[in-house]
């Protein structure tokens, strides 16, 4: 592999940030640990969401479905199988479901895809509830000796993997194909790109990561039930954070995740009934004020700065 001159500092900087992130548990503060966990979780989810949705402009609301399947995989299997194996199984299930959904819907228009994915979490939730009712259960206890610190570190590790994957895809033919598809799918098809395969592959990546995240977080919930594991709000949070940051860049979602997590924590502790309103306003802000997210603002700012330097 050949690295360009800009790549090495960027990689070194990313490694440094990850290293710093991994040191958070040393602070020993439970408030920061809670925030850190949320940020790590949403970074993983939003970044992997944007890997698919950034270039293709398909809005997926299926995150909660994949996430919930991940937590349920652990809930059902933690007594008989090792935890790491369950994460891998969850990831495989997530990828498989995403593959099936993608094959069925990604050749259709964007509206159908949104509705389909929105319904998917609800479908899986209703089916799970129904099956549990048949067996007379409401939920599961997930009792493990895995603590917050381990979960946090696993999420940071997963985040590193997601960023690395995104970076590699961006440099690959697949990444190039996705950029072309995002610009004009008709041109892509007439240039010999199998657009359906490219889209399904990327959707599988995001499904895989979301399911793995759900699996990793399962021990934290202790008790899991369908309405918790498949909470539709999660899908919306992920979309908002990714779009707020800017899905056009690999690091874009991260820029949205950090402020939104703090905002969310503040609102849900002081005004727990207003969270829906916050989500709604966030959507409107994105559409009307920040169509390219914070990344757009930053890039415009840089552009202006450079232009001014040029004239000076």
């Amino acid at each position, binding site marked *: 592999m050949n690295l360009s001159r800009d790549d090495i500092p960027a990689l070194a900087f990313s490694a440094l940030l990850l290293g710093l992130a991994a040191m958070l548990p040393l602070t020993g503060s439970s408030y920061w640990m809670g925030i850190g966990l949320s940020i790590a979780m949403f970074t993983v989810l939003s970044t992997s969401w944007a890997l698919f949705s950034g270039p293709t*402009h398909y*809005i997926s609301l299926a995150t909660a479905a994949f996430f919930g399947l991940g937590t349920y995989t652990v809930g059902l299997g933690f007594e008989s199988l090792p935890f790491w194996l369950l994460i891998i199984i969850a990831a495989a299930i997530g990828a498989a479901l995403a593959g099936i959904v993608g094959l*069925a*819907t990604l050749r*259709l*228009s*964007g*509206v*159908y895809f*949104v*509705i*389909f994915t*929105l*319904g*998917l979490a*609800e*479908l899986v939730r*209703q*089916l799970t*509830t*129904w099956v549990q*009712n048949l067996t007379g259960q409401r939920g599961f206890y997930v009792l493990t000796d895995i603590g917050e610190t381990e979960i946090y570190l696993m999420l940071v590790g997963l985040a590193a993997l997601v960023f690395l994957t995104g970076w590699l895809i961006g440099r690959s033919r697949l990444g190039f194909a996705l950029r072309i598809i995002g610009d004009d799918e008709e041109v892509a098809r007439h240039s010999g790109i199998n657009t359906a395969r490219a889209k399904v592959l990327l959707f599988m990546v995001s499904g895989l990561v979301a399911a793995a995240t759900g699996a990793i977080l399962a021990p934290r919930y202790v008790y899991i039930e369908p309405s918790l594991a498949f909470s*539709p709000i999660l899908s*919306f949070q992920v979309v908002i954070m990714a*779009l707020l940051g800017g899905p056009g860049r690999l690091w874009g979602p991260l820029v949205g995740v950090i402020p939104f997590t703090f905002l969310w924590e503040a609102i849900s502790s002081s005004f727990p*009934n*207003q*969270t*829906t*309103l*916050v*989500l*709604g*306003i*966030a*959507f*409107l802000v*994105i*559409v*009307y004020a920040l*169509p390219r997210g914070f990344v757009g603002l930053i890039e415009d700012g840089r552009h202006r700065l450079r232009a001014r330097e040029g004239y000076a």
Partner: protein
Amino acid sequence: MYIIITGLLLGGSYALIAMGLNLQYGVARIMNLANGEMLVAGGFVAFWLYTTAELSPFLSIFLLAPVVFALNWLIYRIMLLPLVRRAKTRGQLEVDSILATFGLSFVAVGLMLAVFGGDYFSYSYLARSVPIAGDTFALNRVSAFIGAAILCGLVYLWLNRSRVGLSLRAVAVAPESARLVGIDVAQRSALAFGLGGAITAMGGALVSSYLTLDASTGVIFTLKALIVVIMGGVGDVRGTIVAALMLGILETFVATVIDPGLTLAAAYGLFILILLFRPQGLFGRASA
């Protein structure tokens, strides 16, 4: 037989609600994901007027319709038209309108939660039973069905017989050509959007006479209305009605025979089948 009649009664309301969404999507080209909230708002108003002033939901729809029409007309003019103008491609408009109407939907839910709280609301109106074909049915369901059928019929006649209806259909089929023959597309789109909202809200008022609603149930209705619209075909009134009745029967069947908790799953299963085998709708022709 009981299932079929109950299903048809339910489907009648679905038809009205979906017809509202279909007008908005078919003519104004906006997939309005806040449609369900209009329904819940309509239900709220009917509930409030009934409990405070003992006004029958069948009368409150006449108060409701002009207000909701004006509200939706304004929403289109102020919020959605700028998106239509700024969009360079159909795809971009699609993404923008999805996000904007999701935003509206959440804001509406948030406001309703703040004003009315998160309680379920229901009232007892015409809670008597009437015998039909050997079984008994709640009078409020029957009357809501009749109300919905009358409204659906009026909308259908209006679209097919009046000049304005004709121009709306023209915009639905070919906005560019409609512009060439002197139809103000933006104005007609706003009209259709407002009207669609009003129809859905009236449907909400009728539904509230027999279903229990709360501030956050809107999204379920949006999902069902979307399924009906896609199944029936975008812009196809008859298709919408048939699809809505089918959905009503299917849901009632699943709820009675299997489990009431699976109604949405059943609707969704139907949706998957339609997407896989007839993405152009039940009666639609394969398009290019």
